[in-house]
């Protein structure tokens, strides 16, 4: 073999070794990338070339009975900043934000945030409506300032402000309903966020015709309530005025359509404004209509009389001898006015609101019978209105009643109720003896909230039609000129009602507090063909306020407005003359 041939063969071998070596390295690397860390590398590659964005789904609206929005969602922005970029120009930016966003911005607090040391990200202000936030961002960029950014979100607004706030409820920072309809129908109202992923160039420009995946967002469904916005506003306003004038702790006003048991208005004062976030304290945000229990007082006499009338034990002209006073179980009981022995009819007992007369009449039934009737009227059980946090109220079992219990429960003391329970129970008298469960939502789902009807349960008979008519006649005597609440009468209409002035229980000691009352008025109209029932409660008004003088005028105004708005014309029938004495 020649020397040249040996040389070239060696060269070939070296080259081969080098090539094998190089390809070996490639192979190992390939195995590492494809075999060992495949998913991590694939993810990195996708990460580098794609952009993902979430499309927040707006929360469904809450509508009134005519489809007017009571709560809705709009685009909102959260403003953020990079303090490294903004520290030097903090005062200028803070001034612009204060100018454009107003009182929600604290100038000095903003400067502190914009100068946060060792940070590249701070939240400046959350939940700003997009149109306001955009103005601020534009002003900042016009002033050639940089470092302020924004994040998209959806924002809950309540166009009516305080309107029906306790019924609607509100949502927390995470967008979840935490009270009222917002909580109860959270699932319906919440939508599903969408997302879109697409390929982008290194400069962030979307690559046309490249792969992209889009998950459509599903907006939340709406909820249609039974509330009438204009009536609700009027009642809110009227009640707030009454609470202020009587310096009450709180007030409640509920109006129900007695034919359908739909609540058309439910007001509470004082209340809160979830739109601006004012007054958000527990005593305002609690929905007292369903969560607050109290002793109702004399309005309960209507239920006692209905129970007696159903058993045929009382009619409106039944003569009752009312003593001047009574002592039961060492517990002295009197009427709110001093009197000797009176000869009142049953209607007179209701019209004059005599505790003693009611006790005398109620003694015709046993503990168990009376307890059974009260249970039938729904006391001690939730009203079925389907709002969160509802209370059962307190009705002691009939077996454990003392004589004093029997006596006081007949006129509404020693029993605790919610306003909604009272509305449901007296609603049965207005609805000819049939009781149904009150409702605040008529349908839910879909853009207009009409996808699925919320079925109302059929009413069940609690007392006979005649018994209901008897009690209605007695209650009409209350609004007569010689009754306890002539202020509740509405010209041209027949109005049935009942006042209540109950002693207040101190929640700490469980004892009555002298001079502190819960005054109320419960009534329905037109008495000859009831359509609406309105219940007014004022808690702890000035000391000589009474149901007839303080609550009845509020009832008159709200009821008049309801009759007018719903076009309920009077039948023209005269008020029946019922004898109050014999």
């Amino acid at each position: 073999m020649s020397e040249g041939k040996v040389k070239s063969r060696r060269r070939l071998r070296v080259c081969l070794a080098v090539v094998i070596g190089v390809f070996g390295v490639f192979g190992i690397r390939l195995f590492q990338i494809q075999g060992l860390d495949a998913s991590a590398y694939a993810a990195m590659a996708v990460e580098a070339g794609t952009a993902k964005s979430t499309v927040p789904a707006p929360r469904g609206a809450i509508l009134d009975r005519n489809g007017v929005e009571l709560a809705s969602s709009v685009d909102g922005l959260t403003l953020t900043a990079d303090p490294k970029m903004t520290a030097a120009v903090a005062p200028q930016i803070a001034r612009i934000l204060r100018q454009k966003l107003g009182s929600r911005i604290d100038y000095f607090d903003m400067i502190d945030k914009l100068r946060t040391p060792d940070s590249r990200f701070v939240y400046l202000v959350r939940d700003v409506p997009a149109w306001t936030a955009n103005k601020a961002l534009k002003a900042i960029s016009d002033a050639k300032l940089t470092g302020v950014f924004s994040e998209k979100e959806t924002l809950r607004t309540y166009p009516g402000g305080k309107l029906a706030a306790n019924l609607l409820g509100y949502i927390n920072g995470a967008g979840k309903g935490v009270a009222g309809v917002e909580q109860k129908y959270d699932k319906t109202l919440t939508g599903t966020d969408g997302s879109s992923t697409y390929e982008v160039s290194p400069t962030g420009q979307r690559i046309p015709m490249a792969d992209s995946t889009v998950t459509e967002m599903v907006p939340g469904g709406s909820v249609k309530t039974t509330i009438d916005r204009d009536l609700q506003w009027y009642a809110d306003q009227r009640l707030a005025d009454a609470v202020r004038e009587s310096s009450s702790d709180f007030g409640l006003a509920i109006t129900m359509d007695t034919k359908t048991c739909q609540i058309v208005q439910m007001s509470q004062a004082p209340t809160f404004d979830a739109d601006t976030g004012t007054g958000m304290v527990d005593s305002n945000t609690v929905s007292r209509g369903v969560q607050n229990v109290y002793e109702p007082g004399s309005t309960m006499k209507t239920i006692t009389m209905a129970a007696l009338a159903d058993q045929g034990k009382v009619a409106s002209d039944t003569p009752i001898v009312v003593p001047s006073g009574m002592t039961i179980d060492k517990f002295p009981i009197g009427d709110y006015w001093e009197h000797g022995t009176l000869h009142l009819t049953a209607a007179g007992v209701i019209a004059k609101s005599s505790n003693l007369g009611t006790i005398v009449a109620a003694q015709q039934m046993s503990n168990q019978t009376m307890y059974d009737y009260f249970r039938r009227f729904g006391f001690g059980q939730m009203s079925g209105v389907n709002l969160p946090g509802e209370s059962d109220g307190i009705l002691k079992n009939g077996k454990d009643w003392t004589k004093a219990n029997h006596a006081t429960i007949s006129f509404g003391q020693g029993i605790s109720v919610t306003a909604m329970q009272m509305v449901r129970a007296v609603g049965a008298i207005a609805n000819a003896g049939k009781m149904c469960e009150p409702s605040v939502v008529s349908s839910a789902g879909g853009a207009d909230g009409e996808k699925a009807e919320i079925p109302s349960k059929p009413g069940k008979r609690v007392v006979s039609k005649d018994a209901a008519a008897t009690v209605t006649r007695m209650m009409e005597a209350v609004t007569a000129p010689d009754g306890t609440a002539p202020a509740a009468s509405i010209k041209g209409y027949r109005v049935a009602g009942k006042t209540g002035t109950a002693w207040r229980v101190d929640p700490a000691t469980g004892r009555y507090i002298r001079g502190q009352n819960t005054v109320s008025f419960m009534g329905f109209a037109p008495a000859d063909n009831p359509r609406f029932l309105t219940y007014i409660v004022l808690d702890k008004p000035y000391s000589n306020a009474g149901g007839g003088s303080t609550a009845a005028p509020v009832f008159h105004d709200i009821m008049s407005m309801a009759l007018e708005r719903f076009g309920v014309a009077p039948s023209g029938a005269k008020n029946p003359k019922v004898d109050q004495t014999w």
Partner: protein
Amino acid sequence: MSGQIASAAASFQRMAANPGLLPETAKSAGMRLVRPVRSRARKAPFVVVILTVLSIGLVGLIVMSTILQAQSFEAEALNRRAAVLDTQQQALAREVDQLQSPANVARRAIQFGMVPNTNPAFLRLADGKVLGKPEAAKPGSSNIRSVTP
């Protein structure tokens, strides 16, 4: 005959081993040079077609991607504009909501000296009968004198 063939084969072998001998031995073997076979198809049109197709494709691709790119900018600008208009619509809708809210209407009405009526009465169009007892709402008799914001 077979001897001739054998000698031609032998001369061909020789010729292969030594090309310099070709002309004489080939001639002697009865062989002659022929013109190389030329394809009848001409190359130029084919190349032109291919180049044209390629360049049309390339230009088309460039044009299309440029158009798409331009359109993607336009789409983005339009999207931005839609978003701006959307927020503007929301702002205006909100203003309308506020203006037609019962509180605002009531406030304006009270400013004009209007009084809410609390004596409902109806006129039945069929026979012109008045239902209820109509009464003029007097200033001061109303229970809503101002609107609490």
